[in-house]
């Protein structure tokens, strides 16, 4: 039993046929050597455990820093700000009494490119009018008929953003009753 135990630690092959009985007798471990060997093995294992703990600690620190940085926002924040700025520019152009078809087309083209860029970063802008109020995507800042069962977004005051499937910021919207929807669509098509 002891020999098997010893062999495990000494990495010897107990089935080595070439080893003579005398040799085995000479190499038979004493209780002290077993204890010393066990002690050494235990020390080694503790050291491995210690090193692993240090690696885990370092990784956790890095992860904390990473999550801290991601919480405080990175370059995507700037991209969202750019999209937001263009949204407001587009709105102000739309507010003007006369906007030429060419200008309207230019704005649409720019939106197309901007949305492609946002899509590459897995960001979706929430800016649609005429859609049903969705409390996940929209924050109502004014409601023409508070308490109306079905309200639609009649105006987007601040666009919202979805990043990697999570709502980073809900769009700030003005709500109207559902019957206004047709009116909005008509206005938009003008």
């Amino acid at each position, binding site marked *: 039993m002891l020999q098997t135990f010893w062999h495990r630690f000494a990495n010897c092959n107990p089935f080595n046929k070439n080893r003579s009985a005398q040799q085995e007798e000479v190499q038979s471990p004493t209780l002290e050597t077993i204890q010393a060997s066990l002690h050494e093995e235990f020390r080694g294992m503790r050291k491995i455990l*210690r090193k692993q703990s240090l690696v885990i600690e370092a990784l956790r620190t890095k992860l904390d*820093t990473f999550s801290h940085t991601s919480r405080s926002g990175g370059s995507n924040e700037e991209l969202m700000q750019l999209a937001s700025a*263009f949204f*407001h520019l587009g*709105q102000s152009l739309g507010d003007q009494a006369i906007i030429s078809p060419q200008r309207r087309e230019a704005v649409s083209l720019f939106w197309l490119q901007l949305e492609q860029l946002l899509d590459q970063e897995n960001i979706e802008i929430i800016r649609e009018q005429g859609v049903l109020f969705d409390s996940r995507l929209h924050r109502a800042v004014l*409601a023409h008929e*508070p308490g109306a069962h079905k309200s639609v977004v009649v105006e987007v005051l601040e666009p919202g953003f979805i990043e990697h499937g999570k709502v980073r910021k809900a769009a*700030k919207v*003005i709500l109207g009753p559902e019957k206004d929807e047709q009116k909005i669509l008509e206005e938009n098509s003008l």
Partner: protein
Amino acid sequence: MKDICCGIDLGTTNSVIARLQGGIPQPIDIEEGQAIVPSVVSFDPEDGRVYFGAQALNRFVAFPAHTVKSVKRLMGKETPLQVGDATYLPEEISAMLLKHLASEASRVLGQTVHKVVITVPAYFDDGQRRATIRAGELAGLEVMRIINEPTAAAFVYDSPAATGEVKEEIILVYDLGGGTFDVSVVQLRGDIKEVLASCGDTALGGDDFDERLKDHFLRHLHEKCGIDLSYDFPLQVRLKDIAERTKIALSTQPFVAVNEVAVAVVNNEPVNLLLEVGRNEFEEMTADLVDKTSRKVLEALDEAKVDVEDIDRIVLVGGSTRIPVVQDMLADLFDQPMEHSVDPDLCVALGAAVQAGIITGEALRHILIDVSAHSLGTRTIDEIDPETGEADYFSTIIRRNTRIPVTRSEVYYTMVPDQKLVDVEVFQGESPSCRDNTLVDSFRFELKPAPMHSPITLEFSYDLQGIVQVTVNQKGYANTKTVAVDLKKPKTAGKQVKGKENEEPVLGDKPINYISQKARQLLQETRIPQDSLAELKTLTCQYEAALLDNEDEERVDELEDRLVELMDTLEEDRGPLG
């Protein structure tokens, strides 16, 4: 599913649930990846669905009769709330919120959250506390303890179970949230804590600071286009957002350029908001708000019958404590370190999680957050050393205990017209006089000809490796210089002579890892013989220095082996740390 115990900060505006993970408190991101959940509940009368958090808040304006906000203010009152056709007691609404937090946390963690510690304001009376316990029970939770919010905040920095120390101290907890302000004086004696005084203002918070900036923008637009736009509702909504963003940016930089496209349309033309806001300007606009809080601090001290000098530590809670002038005010009032490295929006919930861990007997670890060990700043001429006649004012840029990595900047002004250069000296220390602080590095920055009092911004960008990128910029002259300063290797000059080799080793301000942390705990033990303690201190210093200096792996390994062996021997002689 395994059962765990969580801490819940059930706030007036927002709530957070947190738990211990590996002995360290962590917030649980339960809503769209966010840990901060608005304390709002909204009912859909058509389908009976109940909405919580951000979704409920989003519905508030659309369904005001079916949405409940700030229910915490009504806790303990017997008057039922009318919500649509139904009525609810305040504790029933709180119960719904608590149930939502616990069930969402269970879903995220894959473990049942059944036992909780809930925080309440220090001023809550017995009835309000009992109502909070009932809310927990109605939610099907086992409320293990109700603790005061300021106590929880103090726990997150220094819980006795984590440090192994039993010390007596008086802490001032300054809590400036979005809409409310509270200040408390708490006495900690080991596990026993007592709120000596608590006062505040339920109508003062970060939103008031935003409002001042918003008014400033409105005045600017009025001057620009000659029309009062305060009636323009969409503009108000937009300016509020811009104001909040500007306020946040002003916490890290001395100037913010506000360039906002088409904030309004006047006479069919877009009106852009283009202006620069200086931190000084913002501080002037909000001085009365900060003064109000300062008066409340003195009131709390008076009520607690303690002096300014009796306060051992200051703990900052609430997002608005990130505003530099708030920290400056407290630094002027107290000559004590400020605890602000843990996210001030989360620290009450994290402290509740620590308390939960203490109750359930979970092993606690001291939170190892990388913070600036000393305040960092530069020398200015605002004060003169009476002995030498030299400039001697230490102007702080990064405060002690600030979580790193961090970037902060300040603005300084030239002394004479066409000033040729400026000596940029980086000091670290806590004294208002540079003479008593340590000079870390210095360099010269050549200036382009400019009038007297021209602004120069100085930015410190402090990374996790202890390197500070010092950037000096002559504003408006495209003249910039950046120098990397290694805080581990300060360049000594004059009186600041580095310790000699045979001098007693001096430990750094914080442990490097859990091994050095354990060694430092052992160094506090009084039962260990002095000679062993001296050996332990030397070895700990050598080990930490080897790690900090990135010495070769073999050397670090050898020192680590020796240190661990010595700690094992000492612990065997003395018994393990309790």
